[in-house]
């Protein structure tokens, strides 16, 4: 029956029935992950931000007010935007909301790197990336070039760089994060996608 409720109703119901919140999560988790992935360009960061955003939304669900113009999903993305801004300022994701709820801080499973990168549309930013690549270390730049510009998969990237796949993933991930921070600093818009 939870399926019939709107996002707002789910949020209000979740005050007394915490399970209702999980339904909200199921509806929006992947969109939110994509939102973060396209802005941070980094699967690890995107996954962490997604977890932190839902944790914070759960912890402060009692603060949600069903005002006109602020439906449930807009409220959720408000938190997301706030989280993202903090990430760009601090350069890292804190886990305060997860810690408060006693949720574990999980490492990103290896198979998720590609899956989350698939959510990112690199096409619009490819040009900007080439310029930004100069700021990276040699290892990171090479990994990025192979993965993002040449479009190789991680097995091939690892083979070329003579490192493990996990290592290759991390190099690309860190490099992307650095670039995202850099581009944000210069005020460049990374995506053209419209918020949900």
């Amino acid at each position, binding site marked *: 029956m*939870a399926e019939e409720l709107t996002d707002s109703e789910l949020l209000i119901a979740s005050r007394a029935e915490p399970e209702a919140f999980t339904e909200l999560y*199921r509806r929006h988790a992947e969109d939110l992950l994509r939102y973060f992935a396209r802005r941070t360009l980094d699967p690890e960061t995107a996954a962490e931000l997604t977890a932190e955003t839902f944790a914070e939304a759960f912890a402060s669900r009692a603060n949600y007010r069903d005002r006109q113009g602020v439906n449930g999903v807009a409220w959720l993305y408000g938190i997301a935007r706030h989280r993202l801004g903090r990430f760009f300022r601090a350069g890292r994701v804190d886990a305060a909301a997860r810690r408060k709820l*006693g949720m574990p801080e999980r490492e990103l499973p290896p*198979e998720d790197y590609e899956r989350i990168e698939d959510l990112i549309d690199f096409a619009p930013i490819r040009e900007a990336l080439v310029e930004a690549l100069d700021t990276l270390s040699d290892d990171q730049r090479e990994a990025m070039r192979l993965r993002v510009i040449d479009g190789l998969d991680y097995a091939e990237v690892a083979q070329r760089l003579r490192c493990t796949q996990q290592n290759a993933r991390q190099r690309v991930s860190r490099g992307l994060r650095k670039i995202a921070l850099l581009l944000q600093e210069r005020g460049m818009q990374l995506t053209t996608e419209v918020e949900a």
Partner: protein
Amino acid sequence: MNTDIRALQLLERDLDAVAARERDRLASVERALGDGGPGGPRRLPRRGRGGGGGRNWAGVAAAVVAMLVLAGGIGFLTQGTSPLRRVASDEAQTAGGDGGGAGAEMATPAPAPEEEAAREGGDDEQAFGNALQAPSVSDVSAESWATRDAAGTGPGVGAVPAQQGDLTKIVRDGRIGIVIADGSFSKGVSRVTVIARRNGGFVLSSSSRDERTGTLTLRIPAKRFDDTMLALRGLAGELDGRVDSQNITGEDVTAEFVDLGARLDILKQRRSLLRTLQNDATTSAEILRLSGLIENTQLEIENIQGRLNFLKDQVAEATIQVEVRERHAPGEEAGTDPENPSLTDSFELGVQGFLRVIGAIVVGLGYLIPVAVVAGAVYGVIRLVRRRDRVAS
């Protein structure tokens, strides 16, 4: 969820766990509130705005009210201003005001001041005031009372450290309200004057209204203070009346006395030094400058001397204010008749009561908050340990 991203599946599981914990917590809160209503936590109601929080708020409000009541109780207990206690003190006062009781007191030459203070009736404020002042009054032993007068008129204070008793300077003020039988006002006033004179004092000022109520201010030698107060209490019995209120305050001015004495000594030394210098001075500019300094010093000396004289006077002679009132005298006093309170009196009583309750709550919170902090810390540690166990398992 229709996703193949493992991280999102794991996150869903984590959120489920959190939601389950939260539901257990809410359920235990509801149980604690004795609200085992139908439906239970399995329900998924479409509650209106704030519906879910309503019960939480009720719980919090109940807890706050309980805490405040507890704090108020503790405050009243510690302040000792419970209604029971006040009734008791009223009774004590009426008993003390009786003719027989007062007569017996008169026979006692010099009751210890704290005993006197303890016997005091009057309203709460006065009892409270006396309790506060009792220590400073009781500092003075009977012996020092006897020698105090000599000290007041004696030589410089700091000069005689051997005579410790002489160093204690207390300014005493008394205030007594006497209700006497109708038609005996003028007799009462003349009796008060006689009492003042018999104790070596005099009536400083007096005022009366309608020849039924009046106030007299007496100046009495300090060593006769207690005797005079007793005699005034006795007067109430003599004129078929009672003591309505009594208040004695004692202000210890010893420190100020010693301080002023020391400053006086220094200034006098300075003055004589300056005079010597002036005598030895050769140029007119020097002489002028020195005489200016001497003048200033002289002024200061006179200021201090004046204040010292005033204090000596205050210590040597106590002030007693006597309010004499006929039992059925009209005027503002009539309004305080407890049988028939006026609206303003009732309002004032209400305000006083309100402030007293607030005061008691504040005092009680002072006791409760440290306990609550400790309890909260213990609870926090227990929760932390439990959570760690849960995460570990």
